[in-house]
């Protein structure tokens, strides 16, 4: 391939996926390589930051090599590099940023830092060319639960977020407690399909709090208490009913607040993003509720919901276009804000 102005290498190491991708012109995916670390974190039933950092060092370079091979391009064809610089695990972010800096320096090409949440939102732009701001984005993943008003490209307003656990984190903890496997999201999603979501009436925390924040720690405790009580009473526990009821309690609040946010901001489009956007009941429930209100719903395909570098390359492409640059003395920010 000849030197193309618009081939961006995306690098993502904010949590437990080591990912690299090449995206052309901000929209054409030439490669998408993700190396999951699940098997190293599994026995701990959650992501161990130090293990994540160690695995990133080991895998980031081969993952980048594979992304180049798959895209059939070389380092010298690249026009820029985009790297996630927060929010996320600091030690994990450091690996992507150190690697990206070194490569951009050697290749003498521009480097830009991308907010991980912006990346998740851009996964939707990649797959839905008809999507344009303004819209409401619900970003739900292992580390985040945020309701964001996307006023325009790269212009965000955080309407609310979780006050304690992120959605994916709560799924992991409940799945861990019930021995359903890790990661918890897909495990609960699967077993909940055979359950009755109305079997147990778990609390819908913050449903009528009047704001757009979320809280999941109370629900988590309610689930643990329910299970302990049944066990103490020697009663039988239906895991599918329990999983479905827990999931319904999470989803109900998220759907209700997302729709209210769209109505209050007067927008007709809602976007789902992040790993938990892969959840079947969240997608189904949101689709059902937005339809009568004339609100359009977008969500990415499964592969682009979970952490990947395609979304970072795409978001980075547009940041590079505006002339934004990441300096060589810049550092990642584990609590990086979108605004």
């Amino acid at each position, binding site marked *: 391939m000849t030197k193309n102005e618009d081939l961006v290498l995306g690098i993502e190491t904010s949590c437990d996926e080591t990912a690299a991708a090449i995206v052309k012109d901000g929209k054409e995916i030439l490669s998408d390589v993700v190396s999951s670390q699940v098997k190293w974190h599994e026995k701990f039933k959650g992501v*161990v930051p130090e293990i994540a950092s*160690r695995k990133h060092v080991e895998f980031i370079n081969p993952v980048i*090599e594979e992304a180049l091979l798959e895209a059939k391009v070389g380092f010298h064809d690249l026009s820029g590099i985009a790297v996630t610089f927060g929010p996320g695990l600091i030690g994990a972010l450091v690996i992507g940023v150190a690697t990206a800096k070194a490569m951009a320096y050697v290749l003498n090409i521009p480097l830009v830092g991308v907010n991980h949440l912006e990346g998740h939102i851009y996964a939707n732009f990649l797959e839905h060319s008809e999507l344009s701001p303004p819209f409401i984005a619900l970003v739900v993943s292992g580390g985040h639960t945020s309701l964001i008003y996307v006023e325009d490209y790269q212009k965000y307003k955080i309407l609310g977020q979780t006050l304690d656990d992120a959605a994916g984190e709560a799924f992991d903890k409940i799945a861990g407690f019930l021995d359903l496997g890790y990661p918890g999201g897909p495990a609960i999603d699967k077993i909940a399909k055979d359950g009755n979501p109305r079997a147990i009436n778990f609390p819908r925390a913050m449903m009528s709090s009047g704001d757009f924040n979320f809280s999941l720690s109370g629900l988590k405790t309610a689930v643990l208490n329910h299970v302990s009580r049944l066990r103490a009473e020697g009663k039988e526990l239906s895991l599918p009913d329990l999983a479905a009821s827990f999931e319904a309690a999470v989803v109900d609040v998220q759907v209700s607040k997302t729709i209210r946010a769209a109505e209050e901001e007067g927008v007709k489009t809602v976007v789902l993003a992040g790993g938990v956007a892969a959840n079947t009941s969240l997608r189904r429930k949101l689709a059902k509720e937005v339809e009568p209100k004339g609100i359009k719903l977008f969500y990415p395909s499964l592969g682009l919901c979970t952490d990947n570098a395609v979304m970072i390359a795409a978001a980075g492409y547009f940041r590079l276009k505006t002339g934004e640059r990441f300096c060589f003395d810049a550092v990642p920010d584990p609590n990086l804000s979108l605004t």
Partner: protein
Amino acid sequence: MILAFDTATDACTLALGEDNRVLASKTVHAPRGHLETLLPLIDQVLAEVSIKIQDVDYVASGSGPGSFTGIRIAVSTARGLAQAKDIPLVGISTLDILAYGLRAEDRFICPVIDAKRGQVYFSVYESDGGNIQRMGDIQSLAPDEFCSILKKLGRPVMLAGDALEAYGSLFKERLDDLTKFASPKNWFPDAKNILPLADEQIKRGITCQYYEIMPIYVRVPIAEESWQKRMKKVASADDKK
């Protein structure tokens, strides 16, 4: 031409050399600031001698042991430079770098680095004045245990390393007159000492591909340590049944 650096301790140290000559070098004190310091420092030092990163033939990285994040910054930077430039890499232990700096000072040298969480990393080296030879594995032990091992050795040993800042007085108290402290300027690694060590490896053909060098951690992650302890407990409880 070799570009060498180490960020395992509070020192961010860098040197550029060719044919046994140091062309440029710089060491700055950058506790917890290696990611923001290292690349600008590389750029600055290269610029001072009007050399471009494109002219570098080998990258040599200190690989620890030391601060986990610190060694990952040097190794990731080295791997990134080597991969994008398509040049070989050399990984040098941070303890080797410290010991080499003292090769002319004494016969037995023991670099000792603060491992935090109540331990120190160390290894004993024998020097013939020009070359150094590591005598055993790199270990991570409590300062007390470290002192017992040195005493058992029963040889005059010279200590150097940042652990002397944290445990210097303890070492003085526990160790006998056989132990000497190197002057404080030798307590932190100097990348100038990486150059001959890297050169030696290059001559012997022991270079690495970009994906082959890894940090020398010595210790497993805390989570893994706790998990192993838990598993041992479960196993011994099962045995009792």
